[in-house]
């Protein structure tokens, strides 16, 4: 999906959260501008309808109207399941710390290797897995 700038992408994120029916805490989403095409979008501790928490932080730039995610962390915490998807290119250590990885149940290790993902994909996954009846 094309976005003209960071602000436009942040509005898209806010609307995805607001229209999900899973929370009324979309006001916790914020963006930070380094310049028009570089910044971050984040939210800390959005409470979902069952009390689970969604937090995310994305370091992003816009190139040719496309979102480039240089770093990210997407965390979901519920009473019986916690996971976090990270992208951290600075921390790569062969066999131990893949650039894109998953932490399960709050543990630092192991880091399960993943593909590069996005808030759209992770939020969609959360909805499909935990809130399918809503």
């Amino acid at each position: 999906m094309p976005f003209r700038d960071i602000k436009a992408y942040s509005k898209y994120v806010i609307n995805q959260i607001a229209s999900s029916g899973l929370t009324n805490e979309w006001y916790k989403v914020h963006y930070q501008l380094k310049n028009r095409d570089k910044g971050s979008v984040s939210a800390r501790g959005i409470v979902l309808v069952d009390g689970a928490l969604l937090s995310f932080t994305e370091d992003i730039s816009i190139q040719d109207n496309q979102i480039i995610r240089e770093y990210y962390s997407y965390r979901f915490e519920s009473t019986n399941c916690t996971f976090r998807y990270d992208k951290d290119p600075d921390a790569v250590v062969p066999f131990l710390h893949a650039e894109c990885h998953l932490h399960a149940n709050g543990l630092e290790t192991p880091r399960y290797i993943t593909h590069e993902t996005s808030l759209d994909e992770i939020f969609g996954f959360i909805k499909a897995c935990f809130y399918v009846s809503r």
Partner: protein
Amino acid sequence: MASKGITEQAVLHETADSDYLLSADEVERQIAEYEALFGMSSDEFVRLRQAGNAPDTFETMHWFILLRNK
């Protein structure tokens, strides 16, 4: 701040950009919060990260991203 629990359509119309843009003061406040939480300065944190020795948490990633975009 817009009121809670409104529809997506209303969000589009009522969202004021300034409500969601982190001010420089708010960025500094969050950074100070992380410095207190982890008991180190941001400079020290960046050095630890470069050495591969920083804690690997959501909070440290958010801290790092805030610093990158100051």
